[in-house]
């Protein structure tokens, strides 16, 4: 088998473009292991979304966010949360490893960065293996 770099890059761009076509989807999942074969296999660990609660510090910045409703199949993965303002700029973030055993479907993240609650327009969450 003979592979050319341009072929590989072209394939990846094609896959990325295909991902962009799912702009309206609330959840996108993919497995990198199938990309080389030209197929976008779905390996979703949670498909029904999450719930959120927060706590605030004395300045009314978001201090912690508890993400719940995480499916047990996400245990052992890493959850990354980004708080974004109306302009979609990141104003706070946090990440945590979801324990592989004894996972109760929720995690409380301590937010890094001063994120006034009134300025938070989006939570962005990624769960990665």
């Amino acid at each position, binding site marked *: 088998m003979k592979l050319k770099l341009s072929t590989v*890059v072209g394939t*990846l761009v094609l896959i990325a473009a295909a991902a962009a076509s799912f702009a309206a989807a609330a959840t996108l999942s993919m497995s990198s292991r199938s990309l080389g074969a030209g197929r976008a296999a779905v390996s979703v660990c949670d498909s029904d979304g999450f719930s959120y609660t927060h706590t605030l510090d004395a300045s009314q910045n978001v201090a912690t966010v508890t993400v719940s409703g995480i499916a047990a199949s996400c245990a052992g993965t890493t959850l990354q949360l980004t708080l974004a303002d109306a302009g979609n700029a990141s104003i706070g973030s946090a990440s945590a490893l979801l324990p592989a055993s004894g996972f109760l479907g929720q995690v409380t993240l301590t937010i890094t960065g001063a994120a006034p609650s009134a300025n938070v327009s989006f939570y*962005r969450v990624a769960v990665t293996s």
Partner: protein
Amino acid sequence: MNLFRTIRLLSRARRLLGLVLLIGGCGAGVAGAAAITIATGTLVVSSKTFTHATCTLTGTAQTADAEVREANAGSNFSTQASMVTRPDAPNRRRGYLVFDLTKCSPAIPANAEVDSATLILFATGVPATRTITLYRVTSSWTEAGITWSAQPTVAASATTSLSLSSTGAKSFDVTNDVNDFTQSAPTPLPPYAATVPNDGWMIDDEGAGTTQITFGSSENGTAARRPTLVIAYAS
């Protein structure tokens, strides 16, 4: 084909994958400066969009309040135009008030996250500098039934306190309490194990002396002197 060339190509392709998916990954709704880099092995990408709103509650239709007096332990003082605090036994006086959050229009959505909540009390009489402390009430009470002898329970720790040295509108930060009320209802979300009931606050002067601080009540004839709760929330 040379095996080493294949490995080298795949290695370069893997490095490019992160960059390409970051660009194309905008399709998952993650875009701009706040984008999360979608690495290989991504299992879920999700987002929540918040809309911010404000609710202001005031007046007798949205507030229940009363004063209790130690010297008249069995009497109810819920229809007068003011509430008085006084620290000295056996003449202590305290105020209680609660706002009906269901009267917000539009209604506060279920499990809403509070951005801020401010209780505004209008001090009409401040003869000396005093520290006024608010405690979250932790058991139910009624405006017509509360007396010194029948006071509800309150939280062990104060919600907030404020030093008063003049009359006028005084703002107390009750954000965390209201955040607990809204986020835990109607169905508590983690980390709440149960709904945190909204039973309002007790207004107290825990100092010494005989000074009486007077606040306008919800029955006050001047609207600006009535207790007001301003809630900014996101959902």
